[in-house]
């Protein structure tokens, strides 16, 4: 027998505590739901694949300092030797590391001329081993051949006449066409320099994980004639750590005219690049837990207080025929009513806070289903929190009704 009517009317005559708890529930729901949404978005972002073999890859810097140091010779020798080292699957020189935070970007456009806008793209300069070393998949067209690879000088502005681009980049450049039809088409870099797309790779992320066009990347067939450069090495599965040690020792000994530094695995790089996101997730999770606990304790407190205050009333109800179950239900239902006010208010506040976050911090609008889920969760939190005090109320002896104090 539900007694929503009288419970509600009794609440309305005694509402301060109930209203405060309802507001607390509303605020908790608002913050929790928005936090969960932000956490979900961040972890989705963190789970995106970079396209490279992260588990087995690492990179390092080689900086020549000796008078006699010859970058071209050194790079050729290093790569040839690295590719022969046991445990190394493949190795390349590269100008920038995916998801590392630092790199080069250019704009590509489908029509020549300064008056046309380009599509931003991350540039990776690699030789014909680039596709294999980065563990990419060519899904249309073909890889570079050794004869495509040229040397880039430090102040050079000119670009090679071929490029490989990601599928996302192909779709950004030619939004109306299937991506594979981009092969053979000419695009322009530096407004007017033509490049022919000779291949499409399925996926390769830019160095900047927070960039909204992080999937736009291109491979340029070049080695860099730079004294300070980077090597990217993919080890055979499971051998990365031992290979890292061997590579460092080998490079240090093979040419004493340079120093090897900044060796780092891609796994560590990912961890560093997403450190802000994982910190945000931890902070929000902590805030959520604390808020939920505080709200639950608030509910326990209010319910315990009102059970104690109404001991006589509970005994009287028992005397008038309430079973223990009926007393339990009374307090559960009372909490449900308070929580309902809280979660509906919370639903409105949740949308309000989200609108604010969308406008102020460029967040995405919350998916609608977060709101009913949040409501149900807070209803459940409320019911769990009130269960203890309600059980206590149900155990109050009916004989208390006749006690005269």
């Amino acid at each position, binding site marked *: *027998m539900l*007694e929503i*009517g*009288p419970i509600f*009317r*009794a*609440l309305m*005559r*005694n509402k301060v505590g109930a209203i405060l708890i309802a507001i607390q529930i509303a605020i908790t729901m608002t913050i929790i739901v928005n936090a969960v949404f932000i956490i979900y978005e961040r972890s989705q972002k963190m789970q995106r694949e970079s396209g490279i073999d992260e588990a087995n890859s690492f990179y390092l810097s080689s900086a020549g300092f000796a008078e006699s140091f010859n970058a071209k010779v050194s790079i050729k020798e290093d790569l040839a030797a690295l590719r022969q080292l046991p445990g190394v699957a493949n190795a390349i020189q590269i100008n920038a590391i995916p998801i590392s935070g630092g790199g080069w970007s250019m704009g590509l456009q489908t029509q020549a001329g300064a008056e046309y806008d380009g599509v931003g793209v991350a540039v990776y300069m690699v030789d014909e081993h680039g596709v294999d070393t980065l563990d990419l998949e060519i899904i249309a067209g073909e890889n570079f051949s050794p004869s495509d690879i040229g040397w880039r000088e430090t102040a050079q502005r000119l670009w090679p006449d071929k490029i490989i681009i990601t599928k996302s980049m192909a779709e950004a450049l030619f939004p109306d066409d299937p991506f594979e039809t981009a092969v053979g088409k000419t695009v322009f870099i530096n407004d007017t320099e033509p490049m022919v797309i000779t291949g499409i790779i399925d996926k390769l992320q830019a160095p900047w994980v927070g960039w909204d066009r992080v999937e736009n990347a291109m491979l340029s067939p070049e080695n860099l004639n730079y004294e300070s450069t980077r090597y990217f090495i993919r080890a055979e599965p499971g051998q990365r750590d031992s290979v890292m040690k061997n590579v460092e020792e080998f490079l240090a000994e093979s040419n004493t005219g340079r120093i090897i530094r900044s060796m780092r695995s891609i796994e560590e790089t990912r961890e560093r690049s997403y450190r802000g996101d994982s910190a945000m997730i931890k902070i929000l999770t902590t805030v959520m837990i604390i808020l939920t606990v505080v709200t639950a304790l608030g509910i326990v407190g209010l319910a315990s207080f009102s059970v104690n205050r109404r001991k*006589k*009333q509970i005994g*009287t*109800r*028992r*005397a*008038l*025929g*309430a*079973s*223990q*179950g*009926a007393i339990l239900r009374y307090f559960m239902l009372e909490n449900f009513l308070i929580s309902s006010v809280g979660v509906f208010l919370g639903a409105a506040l949740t949308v309000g806070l989200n609108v604010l976050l969308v406008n102020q911090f460029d967040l995405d609008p919350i998916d609608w289903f977060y709101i009913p889920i949040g409501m149900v969760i807070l209803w459940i939190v409320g019911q769990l929190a009130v269960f203890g005090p309600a059980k206590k109320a149900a155990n109050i*002896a*009916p*004989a208390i*009704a*006749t006690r*005269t104090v």
Partner: protein
Amino acid sequence: MLKMTEIKKVFRTDLVETHALRDFNLHVDEGDFVAVTGPSGSGKTTFLNIAGLLETFEGGSYQLDGEDVSHLNDKQRSQMRNEKIGFIFQSFNLIPDLDLFDNVDVPLRYRGFNAPERRKRIEQSLDLVGLANRMKHLPSQLSGGQQQRVAIARALAGEPRFLLADEPTGNLDSKMANSVMSLLQDINDRGTTIVMVTHDQELARQAKRNIYVRDGKVSELHEVSELPDAVTA
């Protein structure tokens, strides 16, 4: 109707055992109006609590309306209280946050009556105690005598066979006490069996039968003049 034989009740705390009832024997017939008197602490309330199934007992047997109640579980006892027993308390025990209508409604909801049936009974019983025009008032807006009348209406709304009252006039002045007493007599005249604990000799004398409790035992008194002085202590 109400038959207690050799009932024992002991309250145990860490330090003391209180024998509140020892071999308590009582027979109440249908339609009777019994006034229970006795010194403070003699076990009157304990007897009433056991009679009203608010409390369990240790030895002896208790039959209510022909049914042995000792084997009933809490839920069955609650249901029996709800259907067969009406309670009236010294401090009225109205629910302060509910208006008179909702107060009288409390036992009817536990009974499971539908809304029109409940409304009819609430209106009838408030009418019986002369407060039908105050249905939307809160208990705090009434005098003590009026509050006790509401409590009586609440006890009667479910048409119980028994009315158990623990010092129903204890918190009332004598004028109000007398009007409550005459209301109880009207109710008894309509067939409801009443057991009333009281300190008030005057009121006890107006009941059909008096019993005197001392040290957890009954000594029946037919002649009011036999009442010892200690009763008013």
